């Protein structure tokens, strides 16, 4: 009695436009919907019990495995029970709680160790396809589209406990539009193409037909013999689809519905649906109640007998309305069927069915009537037919109209049981209600008799049928009881427009195209920009190979590991690692390596070390959660084996910034690769070679392991090679100029970025000078100028350009330092010297205010370090550069 089941079946209905009995389901919708919600919500919190459905189909003695045709999932808290059978489409718990995997259930068995296992055919969601491959599709993919998964690497044998629920997967032809289904999206998926890890293919005809078959089968089952499924699960969508169907047959009805829709146009779709549903349910309820009351007194004892069946079937109802009389009533019916207190139920049923069919007809004929009047009519009829009409009084008038649809399905259902194939045909071809309804009564009676003879538990159909009979009235009643309470809850869930999870931020496009470089110098400048990615990284071949081998071996082994890479800034650490990843991805695409996921975090781009968890999780699964939650999820992810687990390559750049006092972030990062199932490869990058020894605790350092690599600063030859490789084919630099730059930079830092920046600046200088003469090439002079610009100390120049009194003040400082022998003086002391110096130079001595202004100006430039305080004359002053530099700068004057 899985809720989802009916769901899916009803979803499928649109493809059988004349499948009249859908109307029946409508009745149940309401309850079902509330129910399915319950299931979804409780999925995480409540404990689920998985049990086999039915007896083993076949068992292998040797392997001690036994196969089953279905599995029952019972939720303890809500007492719901769902049945999933072979061929059903299911959701499987995955890495990301929000994005469970989609699969088709192919086989269910219990292995030797009593573990419940399932064999599945995977479907791929868009999110599982690498970003760069999505382009191959060349079309928009809705979130509901999945791809038939033909990647070989995945484990198709999963634990049955990871199954969440059943869903619907509809095959579509490539050009086909997705059917418009606005609600209940989570339940239905579409498949148009298959995906084998490299390219997308159109579904082969036989997989297409197989998928179609699977759906059809289910549809038939659910429609025809779904008695065992309490309609609880139906979601509003179905109702709509039903409405639509219905309207197809009865055009007038459509009109009224459309009207109502229009009137409600302002409210959200969900609300609209909801209101319709409410109306429908209300209408139905009274009849149901009436029926129940009829049956209840006679059968109340049967409870005990029916308990087995109930165990399987009941839970849904109980969960919704545990204290209702309905439960007892339902059970009573069961007992009847089982225990065969013969004729009364049959008669009852028959009479009901006849009356209902009558109503049915009536209703259809009455189309023109407004609902209200219609209802009244029915109410009267009912009274005539059944003695119990008086019960109806308060709610009664609305009820009648829908009672009839409730019953019709049952009859059809029985038919289907017998000749399911036939009916499927009929459905697809005819869908004429009259035909069905006419045949109702006879079928139903006969089927019920059959039921009695057969033993209940063995075939699913039986069960379904009996439960169905019971459940329909119950459900309708329930709906009546619960509607008011439930509805407000539902609407918000559906109504709130969720903001898109990943808003895609974008910088506006430029309105005019960027100019391409016109001259050789511009071309050279473009290539020399640090951001320009060269085809290969010269001078880092060895390091590249080491890292590549490390990752490759781990990938092939399917294990995890860490590598620590160090080196001063600008030595190509990150570039090399990225290059490695690019090559590995290439190899993975060519099937030379197993596929892997690539995640990168940068300590500098995190606001807090703990944000690392959040980013990793987001990369892996797309979830956005808090740091602590993310840590827990990641720990779970890496410590437990999972289906479809790919190796993850994680680059941690600027590792030292992930340092916290407890070092738990680092600890976790380096602990995960050591877990058996993690398949995590970490490449940690930092500047200092001895980082593990210096700042890491022993337990962290030991987990990091000893696989280390250090990038040496570039030598001048390497720098030269880097520049020349970038400038290949462009004649913009003199050979010597390049050598000068590389020697200069190699002597200072060995930072390749600096080297490139100097060259770039040199081209600019050259370009500026070209207007006068015409040297198309960067020469030594230009390079020297660029180097001077970048590396010359600004202090000397600043002092030379200072005003006269500022210079005298500096001299006074030197004098005071020399006098006191201490490299610190108060303004008052310096002031004395300053006045003396002014006297020597024949200048007017400045006032104290002016001296303090000079002092603060020099302090702002940081030529002086000035104590920040209100001490006025007693402020202490120091030089921020060497005394010799000041002397040198001042002497030149």
């Amino acid at each position: 009695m899985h809720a989802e089941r009916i769901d899916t079946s009803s979803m499928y209905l649109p493809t059988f436009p004349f499948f009249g009995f859908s109307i029946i389901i409508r009745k149940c919708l309401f309850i079902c919907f509330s129910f399915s919600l319950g299931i979804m919500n409780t999925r995480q919190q409540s404990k689920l019990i998985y049990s086999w459905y039915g007896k083993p189909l076949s068992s292998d003695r040797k392997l001690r495995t036994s196969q089953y045709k279905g599995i029952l999932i019972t939720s303890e808290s809500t007492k719901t029970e769902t049945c999933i059978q072979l061929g059903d489409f299911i959701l499987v718990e995955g890495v990301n709680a929000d994005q469970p995997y989609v699969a088709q259930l192919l086989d269910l068995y219990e292995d030797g160790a009593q573990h419940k296992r399932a064999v599945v055919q995977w479907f791929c969601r868009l999110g599982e396809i690498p970003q760069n491959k999505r382009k191959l599709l060349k079309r928009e993919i809705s979130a509901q589209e999945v791809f038939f998964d033909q990647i070989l690497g995945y484990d198709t044998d999963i634990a049955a406990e990871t199954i969440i629920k059943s869903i619907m997967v509809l095959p579509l032809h490539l050009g086909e539009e997705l059917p418009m289904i606005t609600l209940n999206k989570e339940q239905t998926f579409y498949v148009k193409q298959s995906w084998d890890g490299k390219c997308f293919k159109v579904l082969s005809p036989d997989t297409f037909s197989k998928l179609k078959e699977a759906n059809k089968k289910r549809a038939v089952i659910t429609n025809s013999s779904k008695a065992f499924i309490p309609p609880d699960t139906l979601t509003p969508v179905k109702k709509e689809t039903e409405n639509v169907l219905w309207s197809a047959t009865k055009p007038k009805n459509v009109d009224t519905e459309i009207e109502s829709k229009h009137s409600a146009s302002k409210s959200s779709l969900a609300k609209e649906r909801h209101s319709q549903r409410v109306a429908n349910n209300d209408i139905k309820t009274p009849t149901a109640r009436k029926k129940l009351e009829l049956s209840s007194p006679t059968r109340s004892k049967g409870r005990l007998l029916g308990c087995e069946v109930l165990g399987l079937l009941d839970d849904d109802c109980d969960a919704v309305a545990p204290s209702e009389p309905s439960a007892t009533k339902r059970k009573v019916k069961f007992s009847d069927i089982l225990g065969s207190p013969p004729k009364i139920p049959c008669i009852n049923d028959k009479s009901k069915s006849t009356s209902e069919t009558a109503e049915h007809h009536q209703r259809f004929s009455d189309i023109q009537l407004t609902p209200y009047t219609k209802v009244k009519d029915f109410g009267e009829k009912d009274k005539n037919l059944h003695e119990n009409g008086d019960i109806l009084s308060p709610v009664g008038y609305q009820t009648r109209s829908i009672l009839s649809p409730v019953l019709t399905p049952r009859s059809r259902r029985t038919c289907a049981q017998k000749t399911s194939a036939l009916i499927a045909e009929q459905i697809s071809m005819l869908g004429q209600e009259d035909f069905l309804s006419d045949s109702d009564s006879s079928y139903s009676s006969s089927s019920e008799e059959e039921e009695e003879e057969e033993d209940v538990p063995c075939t699913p159909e039986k069960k379904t049928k009996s439960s169905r009979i019971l459940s329909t009235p119950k459900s309708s009643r329930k709906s009546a009881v619960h509607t008011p309470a439930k509805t407000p809850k539902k609407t918000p869930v559906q109504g709130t427009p969720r903001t898109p999870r990943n808003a895609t931020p974008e910088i506006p496009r430029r309105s005019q195209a960027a100019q391409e470089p016109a001259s050789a110098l511009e071309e050279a400048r473009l290539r020399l920009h640090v951001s320009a990615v060269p085809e290969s990284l010269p001078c880092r071949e060895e390091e590249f190979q080491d890292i590549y081998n490390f990752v490759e071996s781990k990938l092939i082994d399917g294990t995890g590991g860490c590598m620590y890479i160090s080196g001063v800034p600008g030595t190509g650490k990150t570039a090399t690692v990225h290059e490695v990843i690019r090559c590995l991805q290439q190899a993975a695409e060519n099937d030379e390596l197993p596929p892997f996921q690539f995640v990168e975090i940068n300590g500098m781009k995190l606001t807090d070390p703990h944000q690392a968890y959040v980013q990793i999780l987001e990369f892996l699964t797309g979830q956005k959660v808090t740091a602590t939650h993310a840590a827990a999820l990641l720990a779970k992810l890496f410590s437990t084996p999972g289906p479809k687990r790919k190796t993850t390559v994680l680059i941690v750049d600027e590792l030292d910034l992930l340092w916290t006092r407890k070092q738990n972030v680092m600890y976790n990062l380096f602990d995960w690769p050591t877990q058996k199932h993690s398949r995590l490869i970490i490449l940690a990058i930092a500047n200092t070679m001895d980082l593990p020894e210096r700042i890491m605790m022993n337990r962290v350092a030991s987990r990091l392991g000893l696989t280390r690599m250090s990038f040496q600063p570039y030598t001048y030859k390497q720098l030269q090679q880097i520049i020349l490789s970038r400038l290949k084919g462009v004649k913009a630099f003199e050979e010597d100029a390049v050598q000068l730059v590389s020697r200069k930079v190699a002597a200072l830092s060995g930072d390749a970025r600096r080297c490139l920046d100097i060259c770039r600046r040199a081209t600019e200088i050259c370009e500026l000078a070209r207007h006068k003469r015409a040297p198309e090439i960067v020469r030594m002079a230009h390079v020297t100028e660029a180097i001077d610009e970048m590396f010359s100390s600004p202090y000397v120049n600043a002092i030379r350009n200072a005003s006269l009194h500022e210079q005298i003040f500096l001299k006074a400082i030197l004098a005071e330092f020399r006098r006191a022998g201490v490299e610190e003086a108060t303004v008052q002391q310096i002031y004395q010297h300053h006045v003396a110096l002014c006297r020597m130079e024949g200048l007017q001595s400045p006032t104290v205010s002016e001296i303090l202004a000079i002092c603060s100006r020099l302090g702002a430039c940081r030529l002086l370090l000035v104590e920040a305080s209100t001490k006025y004359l007693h402020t202490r002053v120091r030089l921020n550069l060497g005394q010799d530099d000041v002397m040198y700068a001042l002497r030149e004057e």
Partner: protein
Amino acid sequence: MRPSPRPSSARAPASLRELRMQPAKPSAMSKRKLKESSEESAECISQVQKILRERFCHCGAAGKLFGMKQQYSHLLELLKRTTVHGESNSALIIGPRGSGKTALLNHVLKELREMNQVRENLLEVHLNGLLQTNDKVALKEITRQLQLENVVGDKVFGSFAENLAFLLEALRRGNRSSSCPILFVLDEFDLFVHHKNQTLLYNLFDISQSAQTPVTVIGLTCRQDILELLEKRVKSRFSHRQIYLMNSFDFKEYIQIFKKQLSLPAEFPDESFAQKWNNNVQRLSEDRAVQAVLQGLFQHTKELRALHSLLMLALSAVTVHHPLLTAADLQEAGRQRSADSRANIVHGLSVLEICLIIAMKHLNEVYDGEPFNFQMVYNEFQKFIQRKAHSMYNFEKPVVMKAFEHLLQLELVQPLERPSVRAQREFLLLRLLLDSRQIMDALQLYPNCPTDVKQWAASSLSWL
């Protein structure tokens, strides 16, 4: 923008008052005039005041640039390449306060905006280290200025982390050829350096060094040691392009600047007056006295703002009766500008307070700048009274104490440490915030100073 709050304006309350009044009621003034031409010239004067004051106050936006041609072309080229070619860059404009960093940038931006090719192609983000005091605030401001918050709709930027990730994602999506270049201007760049981990700077420079949205980061700072403050990773990512502004003009150019700043533009309504005014300015620039004033200022500071404040003071002397600037006006302004603020306070003290200050000066000389307390000062003062035997200054101790506290309030005397409840006020250790030279200068100018006090000030032994 309001008139630059210079210390000099505080020193010249009279001129300030005049300044404020004039634009408010020129008509009232004109009514007072008896001459016929007065109305017209009043109109001219108020025009002159308006034009020149605007020039002196808004030196960043409207003023001219002096002596930075090379830097100008460098910066212009840089920004042009960013917008036209989509080249990422980073640069620092370094120069002392008042050297025209912001003015340079504004001029370059103004010229860029006039170019068709550039106008729609550049997004500007202006940040100031004094306003964006941490990265969180800065990121919010960037998002706002890039108008990215629309993209997020109703999503609330709760966390700093989210905001950063969002922004980086936004910038990462761009590329050189198709995204609109962004210019980040970081005013008071040195304050951004103190943000935690220099996250913002790292990310901005990192973007400017990688193939993402083209970005140019321009930092403005007055600190010469700015590169030493950058963290090594940040420093490596910075392109080391530094544009120095040094005020590297000599006195001749300074005179030219003075002339340009004071001249009226050609489009001045009353041509004859403008002619007269400009001729006068020309004459002034050749005047020896004026040159001496300017020379004095130039020797103290090359900052153009100082010149502006000087001219502002001089300009405030211009009225209908006195329509043209004279050398005396400038001299007076120069005197006001360079006056010592503490000495001015001393002028307003009573004789008793002056005596106390003199006593403190003697104590400083005797004890070589060691701190003193009230009791010591009082004893010194008593000695002077007894020697002189004039009862004229013989005040009660509480009265002296009161005078002493007044000095404390004027902050001419400063306690070494915060006064605590337990310590007696008489024995609180103090320090004089005046230099002996200041005291002597102030005494020279002190009106009606008794001779014996003057003598005592000159030497503590004068009674002998």
